[in-house]
């Protein structure tokens, strides 16, 4: 998992727009020609300053989402029901942290160090997927995350893996391969509750009701409110619009929920057979921005836990450090 469609951007972008004006027009044309032909861009290639900046932003926030996303599920490892579920959850959480490392490395090829990215996460400057600011209250929440949030992330990641930046595509290919097990184990755990006792079913229905709004937020605000998508789509940084990805997700997964006799807390949710598009109540976007900016139920805890891990782990990193080593960025 975990890359959402929505990537937070700092409001002040004037300085970089200035840089953007200085891109060599001949090099820019060659760069765009390469992308149009479907060729990949590699770390040593010339690229527009804005392309580099947007990719760092995208990949870094995807990496943070993997690391922070491991927390709500990680809390359930000790309480997972049964040995097999515990093994699967440990493996999944380890995969997510591994995905974070793959993505940090892909972002590092663009020139920002992992330390700088982690600092931006800890200071709140850089964001992560909004869904992880909500708690996993019961085991049913873990099954909903494992099935539906992973499914949503796969929709996004499969699209992005066909993008233009080589290192990000390679990382995503590996990630998507590993995700197939995550989705399957999540589905399996969810089905077990859905076909279980009335208490289990009620617990699952509660979790679905809690998670539906965050899931609808997952792909970001509707296209009509999206500001700088056009250039990013031309450069194949963004591969599908927020609404298209949301529609694709609903099309595949809503029937899988309904067929289990479960409901989703939106009376307007239905597929328009004429247009082939899903219709739904507009999610509360004010709430979405409030949660992104620190007002969600778990924002504080997530960063506190991350800071605790960095502070408490520092002596181990320092003890192993060899300062005579020459440092370099990843090659590819």
């Amino acid at each position, binding site marked *: 998992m975990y890359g959402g469609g929505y990537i937070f951007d700092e409001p002040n972008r004037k300085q970089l727009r200035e840089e953007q004006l200085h891109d060599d027009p001949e090099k820019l044309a060659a760069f765009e020609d390469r992308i149009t032909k479907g060729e990949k861009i590699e770390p040593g290639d010339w690229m527009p300053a804005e392309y580099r900046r947007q990719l760092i932003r995208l990949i870094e926030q995807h990496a943070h989402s993997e690391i922070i996303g491991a927390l709500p599920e990680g809390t359930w490892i000790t309480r997972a029901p049964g040995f097999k579920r515990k093994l699967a959850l440990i493996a999944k959480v380890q995969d997510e942290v591994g995905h974070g490392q*793959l993505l940090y490395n892909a972002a590092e090829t663009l020139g920002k160090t992992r330390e700088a990215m982690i600092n931006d996460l800890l200071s709140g400057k850089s964001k992560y997927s909004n869904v992880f600011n909500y708690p996993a209250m019961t085991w049913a929440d873990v099954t909903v995350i494992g099935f539906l949030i992973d499914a949503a992330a796969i929709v996004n990641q499969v699209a992005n893996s066909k993008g233009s930046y080589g290192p990000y595509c390679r990382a995503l290919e590996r990630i998507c391969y590993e995700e197939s097990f995550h989705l399957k184990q999540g589905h399996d755990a969810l089905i077990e509750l859905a076909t279980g006792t009335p208490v289990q079913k009620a617990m699952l229905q509660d979790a679905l009701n809690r998670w539906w709004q965050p899931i609808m937020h997952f792909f970001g605000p509707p296209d009509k409110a999206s500001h700088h998508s056009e250039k990013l789509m031309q450069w194949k940084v963004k591969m599908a619009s927020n609404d298209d990805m949301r529609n694709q997700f609903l099309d595949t997964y809503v029937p899988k929920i309904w067929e289990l006799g479960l409901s989703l807390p939106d009376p307007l949710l239905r597929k328009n057979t004429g247009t082939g598009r899903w219709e739904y109540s507009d999610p509360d976007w004010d709430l979405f921005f409030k949660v992104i900016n620190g007002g969600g139920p778990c924002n*504080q805890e997530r*960063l506190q836990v991350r*800071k605790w891990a960095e502070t408490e782990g520092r002596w181990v990193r320092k003890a192993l450090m*060899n300062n005579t080593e*020459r440092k370099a*960025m990843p090659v590819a």
Partner: protein
Amino acid sequence: MTNPSYDPRVNRLKLGHADDPVKIEEGENWNIYEVFHQEKRGAHHEHVGCVHAPNPQLALVFAKEQFGRRKKCVNLWVVRSADILAFDLEDEDMFAGNLEKTYRDASGFKVMEKINKVKGAAKQAPGKA
């Protein structure tokens, strides 16, 4: 902490305040190593990604955890990213070279034409063969 966590372990930690500044120093995440993965005996080692590590031995340990835990793997190599020497991508055109390379390609040598010609001549005049 304002709200108690749903995770009892988190509540047992002495967490600082979310606004406390914590800063990782540059270099604190060590050095970067490229990782090469061998899927089975007889196969080439293939580049699969990188790990951060303080020395080559630990880079191997982390590489095993990161790249050897899912797919089949019999061996891994690590090498410092700084030690990789590569051509400049801008010089890609030097590999284009001359497209007329039939002299170094098996398809550039057509022996069958001559063999068939000889065989054909022998069939037409069997007595003299």
